[in-house]
């Protein structure tokens, strides 16, 4: 479907490294990249699906995404809903049908992780709470963290954990990487909030200043810009701490990923 490809292939402005994490996890625990590619693609499909649905008029009502008109602006609301639905299914189909040389048991475990990240315990929960919080005057830091963990962290966590599962990681390795992912997932959102305050639409590739304009709860708003920057630093340090337990050479890409997320400009 053209509309699926439109959203998937538009130049990434905000998360270019995304397809890589699962592969890196895979290699980190002893697998090879080829085994993880279907999962990496599935994660990207899910991410794209969530953006398409988030941008809809009844949700965040965004006109711009990744530097171009949002999917529903280009193709219509009905098509955008269906494109999202098709992408969720395609993601699961892709993992189930295209993952090669991996024990079916591991593929199934990865599918469970993916399901948890996408649904009512993951992305959906985050989006719902975000919408509920938008209608409230005061949002606590815990509530804000819940939203970001579920909207952003969980999918990143799934990417990392699924990569590790597919790569043959044991329980302890998987859990270390899960913690790593939770930290960088939250870090991503904190940095996003900081950038929204400090950058323009053109640089960001999406509508800027929306957070301030809409009174949305953000880290800078709740803890002040300076403290938010410190918090970002703490998260990055925590993430990197988990990586200490892995082979120093193999873990380099993940260090760079954490660094990129912490210091990105768009």
């Amino acid at each position, binding site marked *: 479907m053209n509309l699926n490809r439109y959203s998937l292939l538009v130049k990434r402005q905000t998360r270019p490294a995304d397809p890589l994490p699962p592969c890196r996890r895979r290699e980190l625990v002893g697998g090879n990249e080829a085994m993880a590619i279907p999962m990496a693609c599935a994660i990207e499909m899910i991410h794209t699906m969530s953006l398409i649905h988030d941008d809809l008029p009844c949700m965040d009502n965004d006109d711009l995404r990744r530097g171009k008109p949002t999917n529903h602006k280009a193709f219509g609301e009905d098509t955008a809903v269906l494109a999202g639905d*098709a992408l969720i*299914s395609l993601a699961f189909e892709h993992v189930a049908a295209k993952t090669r040389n991996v024990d079916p048991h591991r593929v199934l475990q990865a599918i*469970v992780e993916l399901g*948890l990240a996408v*649904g009512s315990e993951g992305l959906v*929960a985050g989006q719902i709470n975000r919408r*509920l919080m938008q209608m409230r005057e005061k949002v606590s830091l815990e509530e804000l963290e819940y939203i970001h963990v579920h909207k952003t962290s969980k999918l990143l966590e799934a990417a990392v954990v699924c990569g590790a599962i597919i790569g043959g990681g044991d329980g302890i390795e998987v859990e270390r990487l899960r913690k790593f992912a939770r930290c960088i997932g939250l870090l991503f959102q904190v940095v996003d909030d900081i950038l929204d305050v400090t950058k323009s639409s053109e640089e960001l590739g999406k509508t800027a200043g929306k957070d301030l304009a809409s009174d949305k709860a953000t880290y800078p708003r709740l803890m002040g810009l300076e403290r938010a920057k410190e918090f970002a630093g703490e998260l990055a340090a925590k993430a990197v701490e988990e990586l200490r337990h892995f082979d120093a050479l193999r873990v380099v890409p993940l260090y760079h990923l954490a660094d990129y997320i912490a210091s990105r400009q768009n």
Partner: protein
Amino acid sequence: MAFSTVIMSSPHAYIPKTASSPTIRRRVRCSSASVSTQFDLRTYWTALIKEIDQKLDDAVPVLYPQRIYEAMRYSLLAKGAKRAPPVMCVAACELFGGDRAAAFPTACALEMVHAASLVHDDLPCMDDSQSRRGQPSNHTVFGVDMAILAGDALFPLGFRHIVTNTPTNLVPESRLLRVITEIARAVGSTGMAAGQFLDLDDEKKFGEMGRCSAVCGGLLGGASDDEIQRLRKYGQAVGILYQMVDDILEAKTETDKKKGKSYVSVYGVEKAMEVAEDLRAQAKKELDGLEKYGDKVLPLYHFVDYAVDRGLVLGSNSFDN
């Protein structure tokens, strides 16, 4: 006028007379003449619905945030649901000697993705339906945003549910992957989403669901590849047949027309009735090759007649409920 009588006493089936148009009687030879007609589909189906409803209720407890679970449950547990996809799945599984415990998680998953696609179909930007399964549609109760998210949550829940609940001693894991692939394909861009996109209310979508349900049941029951092929064609024929008969009934009662094209709206009732008979024959023909399973083929066999005759009162008469 609705079809009023069940013609199950003869393997030579024909569509019964209706008040407003001449009967089209076509004698259809079914070589399944040896299949017993004593099977009570109503009891079988009603009992299965009870079990499936209970499992669905258990599968979606209300957690935090409550509202999304309420929205999911609202559509999933609607009283008017007929549960045709899960029943077909269980019947197909048992046909090959499978334990229904192997089929129930997938049967539930089929219902979850089916419910999800109906919630999205009903949205204002799609079919804009005010009611579904005998109750107000999801978005009219919970809002459009919640309805979209409820659907988005039900799709992945289905896949998770299959993996976490199917006993691995009953179904090899490689087969489970095939089941997941089958369902994902049915829902995705080659299947139901495409059907809605192309504005075909019936053929594409319900053929897909029927096909998927039958095939998944076969996979879970240990069917061979040839047998799976038969189920594929059977399921497709039955799925389309159900919807076509719905469209015929709707055309005859002149109730509010659904949006979108259907075979009936394009070719008219009489032609559609002929095609329905062909589909009935086709579906039964696929089951001919499964005679060795004896009485285990009865549920699937009788579904076909039920699709046409609808003499059983199980609630409202749509496959899409």
